[in-house]
């Protein structure tokens, strides 16, 4: 395996996260406090672009999908635990690495905590902890009565609409607050 593309992809990813402010504790926490939704809009918009692009390329036979299996209880329970950690740390596993590189000491502790989290999970799993049932690799394209490309386009449009609505709502709230202040 050639490591160069992986390093370049990671470098670009870290750089983008920095430039948009996703490596910063305040931007993450203010998104979660619903004070400033920049990071949420950034993420959802990038997913909308990706979905449209990936399914276009897939229709041309250039990429194949690789899904994480759906296991409703595990996905939900893991997400809830992750969410508490997200609010506490103000970083996610990827941004903590970039933030640490940026010189934020607390992010280094998040990474250490993460390594311990993996260790404890693996020990519990080895001692027989099992969670939920694995329902296999399911995508919305398997569930909706359209072809894959159409489903993806509809999904992108819906997501774009959601981002636009969030942005509109935020701008309106900002206006109201400014009027209230004057």
């Amino acid at each position, binding site marked *: 395996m050639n490591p160069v593309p992986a390093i370049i992809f990671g470098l670009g990813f870290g750089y983008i996260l920095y430039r948009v402010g996703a490596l910063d504790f305040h931007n993450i926490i203010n998104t979660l406090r619903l004070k400033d939704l920049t990071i949420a809009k950034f993420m959802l918009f990038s997913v909308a672009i990706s979905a449209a692009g990936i399914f276009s390329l897939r229709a041309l036979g250039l990429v194949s*999908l690789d899904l994480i299996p759906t296991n409703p209880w595990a996905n939900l329970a893991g997400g809830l635990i992750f969410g508490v950690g997200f609010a506490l740390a103000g970083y996610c596993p990827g941004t903590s690495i970039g933030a640490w590189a940026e010189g934020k000491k607390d992010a280094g502790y998040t990474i250490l905590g993460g390594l311990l989290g993996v260790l404890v999970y693996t020990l519990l799993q080895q001692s027989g902890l099992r969670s939920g049932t694995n329902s296999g690799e399911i995508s919305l394209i398997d569930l909706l009565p359209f072809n894959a490309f159409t489903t993806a386009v509809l999904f992108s449009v819906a997501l774009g609409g959601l981002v636009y609505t969030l942005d509109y709502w935020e701008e309106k709230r900002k206006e109201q607050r400014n009027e209230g202040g004057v």
Partner: protein
Amino acid sequence: MKTKWSWVTGGLILGLWNILIFLSGNHLGTTTAYAQTTGYLTQFFTTVIPVSAWTAGTCGTGSTLGVSWQWYLVLGIFLGGLTARLLHGKQKADSVPKLWQERFGFRPRLRYLHAFAGGFLLLFGARIAGGYTSSHVISGMSQLAVSGLFFGGAVFAAAIPVALLLYRKGGAR
């Protein structure tokens, strides 16, 4: 601030970047790198836990505990943060985020404890769920994966109330 991109610019660039990553036959994700690192360190002391326990799950599974594609990706993220800081960073980063200080005061050790506990829950949850933000949301949701939609919904369902509760006194900045 001039150095900051808007969410439109950032989202567009990340979207295109993610498409390129897919074209190369790979996917974003870092939990496997965490698991491999922990596995590698643990293996040094004891081999009670089989290698497969560390490498199983998440996206892009490797069957060895070596330095994998994801591990290089993580190295890249580190270099990306470093590069951005050298190019655009003005001052030294705060050891305790301002918003956190407003709520809890300047107590670095308590902040580090929060960050550590947060990190623990992040990876513990991610391993249960089979992935996290980049793998479930950026690559998972882009493939319309049901697992990613479940995960993403649950993250915000927990993170929003906890953040509102933890930092309810902080100002908006």
